[in-house]
């Protein structure tokens, strides 16, 4: 009798607790060890880039909410900055500050979600996730107070922001900013000294700095590998050049470093928020622009540092109110491409944690 060796193929997803949405991994396994990984995306494709070519620039802002649904503010900001550069629109100073405030709030909310789900992927039964949701809820309350929506905010406009925050926004924001450092210390104590968590994350899913740059990693994943690259410092937009903050950089490039970089970025965002609250001037929150904005023919690539990394919008105008080409450089998609480097040769639990540490959002991958 002969026995045949078949590859043991495990199909993770599209519905699976740790794929963070509808995304599929086809894993070839040898016992517990992964031999090959296929990443299959496209289950959430909504053809945004094509749809955008039929709509005016302002009408396209709500699409960016739905692309990366955990960082709607940053996506709004990226598109608005690109269009403003394309059309040469001036933004009032107060609007720039408001944009910084909301982008940083969004970063905190998104990192809370990312780190919480990552610890859940490591097997903690959702406790860290719910603790981090506590702060995220307060931030979403602030969003709701200002623009009426919590997740798909559609807040930024070309030439400013849609609303000035109501009076009760500022005390609530200050309260949040004041309590954040204590909360961050609490997370540190919960997670950082946990021997099991350290054993599960340290020296797991290591990406060297050179590999990270060659693989076009961006955001906390790149900084976790030790490369100090942050667009807020390298290419300041809005009023980031007036803010005093530091870029956290990991030491080894493992899962734990990416986790800690996010944690530290929350602390730095709190610092930026404190300065922004202190500096924000009075004035209009928006400049008036024509309803059907017709930028001169040309092209532009605008990019911002979103919670997941460099988010780029490549726009081509042909002089009509709608973009001729609307392309999004999505951080999640490009970060995901390095999962194979981390997963092959590792065991299944390590691959799951590594995927969690990349912080993918499937809406951002597929658009």
């Amino acid at each position, binding site marked *: 009798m002969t026995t045949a060796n078949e590859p*043991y193929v495990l199909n993770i997803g599209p519905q699976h607790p740790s794929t963070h949405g509808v995304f599929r991994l086809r894993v070839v396994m040898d016992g517990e060890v992964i031999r090959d990984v296929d990443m299959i995306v496209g289950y959430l494709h909504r053809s945004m880039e094509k749809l955008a070519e039929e709509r005016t620039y302002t009408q396209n802002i709500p699409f960016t909410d739905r692309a990366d649904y955990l960082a709607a503010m940053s996506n709004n900001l990226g598109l608005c900055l690109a269009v403003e550069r394309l059309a040469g629109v001036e933004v009032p100073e107060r609007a720039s500050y408001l944009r910084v405030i909301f982008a940083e709030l969004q970063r905190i909310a998104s990192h809370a979600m990312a780190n919480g789900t990552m610890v859940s992927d*490591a*097997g903690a039964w959702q406790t860290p996730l719910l603790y981090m949701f506590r702060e995220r809820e307060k931030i979403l309350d602030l969003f709701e107070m200002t623009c009426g929506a919590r997740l798909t905010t559609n807040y930024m406009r070309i030439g400013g922001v849609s609303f000035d925050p109501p009076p009760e926004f500022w005390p609530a924001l200050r*309260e949040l900013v004041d309590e954040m450092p204590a909360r961050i210390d609490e997370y540190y104590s919960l997670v950082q000294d946990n021997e099991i968590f350290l054993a599960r994350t340290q020296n797991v899913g290591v990406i060297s700095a050179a590999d990270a740059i060659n693989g076009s990693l961006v955001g906390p994943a790149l900084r976790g590998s030790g490369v*100090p690259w942050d667009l807020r410092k390298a290419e300041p937009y809005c009023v980031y050049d007036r803010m005093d903050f530091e870029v956290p*950089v990991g030491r080894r490039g493992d899962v734990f*470093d990416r986790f800690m970089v996010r944690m530290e970025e929350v602390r730095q965002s709190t610092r930026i928020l404190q300065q922004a609250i202190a500096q924000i001037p009075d004035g209009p929150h928006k400049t008036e622009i024509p309803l059907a904005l017709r930028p001169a023919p040309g092209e532009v690539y605008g990019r911002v540092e979103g919670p997941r990394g460099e988010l780029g919008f490549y726009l081509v105008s042909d002089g009509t109110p709608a973009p001729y080409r609307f392309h999004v450089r999505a951080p999640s998609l490009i970060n995901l491409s390095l999962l194979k480097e981390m997963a092959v040769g590792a065991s*299944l639990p390590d691959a799951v944690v590594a995927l969690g540490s990349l912080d993918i959002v499937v809406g951002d991958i597929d658009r």
Partner: protein
Amino acid sequence: MTADVRRPATPMEQQIREHRSLVQRALALGGGWKFILGVVGLGTLIALAAGGFLVVGGYLDGRWYDIRDLGIPTSHLVYWMQAQGLSPAVPYLTTALLGGLGILSLVGGWLVIGSWVERRVIAKFQIRQGPNRVGLFGLLQPVADAVKLMQKEILIPLGADRLLFFLPPILIFLPAMLGWAPVPWAPRMSYVDMNVGVVYVIAISSLGVLAVFLAGWSSNNHYALLGAMRTVAMMVSYEIPISLSLLSVVLLTGSLQLSQIVAWQQQYHVWLIVVLPLAAFTFLFASTAEINRTPNDIGEAESEIVAGFHTEYSGMKAGLFLAVELGNAILVGAMMSTFFLGGYTLFGLELWIPGYLILATKIGAVYFVFVWLRATLPRFRLDQLMGFAWKFLIPLAIIQLLVIAVESMVIAQSGLPGIVTVGGSIAVNLVLTFVGVRAWASGIGYVSEAAASTPLLTNTVGGLRAAERIRVVS
């Protein structure tokens, strides 16, 4: 927060605001209804108290029943049957049925309460409410869940081995129930006080793995097979530390009989967890591996292999797996209490409080520890877990066994008072636990990772060269 002041309440908040518990609803009733309810409630209480007084106080049949020892009424029943001239099989079968029903209904009731407790306690750990809709404080939630599970369709996957797929939910239930047989609930109150109780416990606890492997194999599902393989590997490894830790208990107390182990702890007025801290920890940790609970729930790791070996089960079959998981946790709580926490004794208090209530309290405490672990800890990886068993727990348990062998000889044969010999053993074992564990850990090359690296902070940006510069500076 000020945020909520001007915002109209969301439907969920409205619902929470309008929610009234049963007590609040009763208090809101009209005066007449309240009076009737009060009379009925008070009357029931008075009738119950009077009935209990009549029966227990012996006004009914001239006998004084001691509720602290349920063995007395049972033995009265047996004597009565023998006096009637019935064949010996009748009292034997009757008491067996009574005891079995008692244990089954107790464990069954505990499963219902336990799932509510677990969900509520974990909810408190996670700063949320937990089930609070069905019944008072959501107490009826397990009943509602059971009804829902029974209504669900039971699916059999294509390509499954139908017979083998049908068996595991039943097979896995057997050891969870059989394990209760030798547990001593009070003096002279255990289902079977067999003289090889410890061997029986070890034998029964290794039966469960069969059902798990059948479930994983017959499902024709890759997740299920992975989960079953992990569970089998883990259970085979962790049988050994469990057996070794129980062996040190047996060596020290000189008996395989569970009631004798409790009696030893009663005699020396000390719990075995104090005398054998390493064995107690080994037993607790290895038990979490045996019964698939956090931090060792790798057999059904949700974030990796969905539900492990019972991925393909639906409806009440899945419910049985979940119930057995909870039942096993309670059973391990009973074993832990009996072996290491003094069983039904509580430093003399067992003369005044029924022993089974004391044991139940201890089981509840151990169960709470399990829930606490589940709410707090992440999961180990399979290789880390196996390494921990083979490199760490087993060698240390063997060393401890050798030390206990000497100590038990000293305790039994030196003729010195117990406070000297047992006290000396406690001191030796404490030193062994705290020094030996550290020495062994550094001996096998384990480095504590508690000194975690924090990110470097920089104000410069750049590419690879900047990265190297920062690393050199730090």
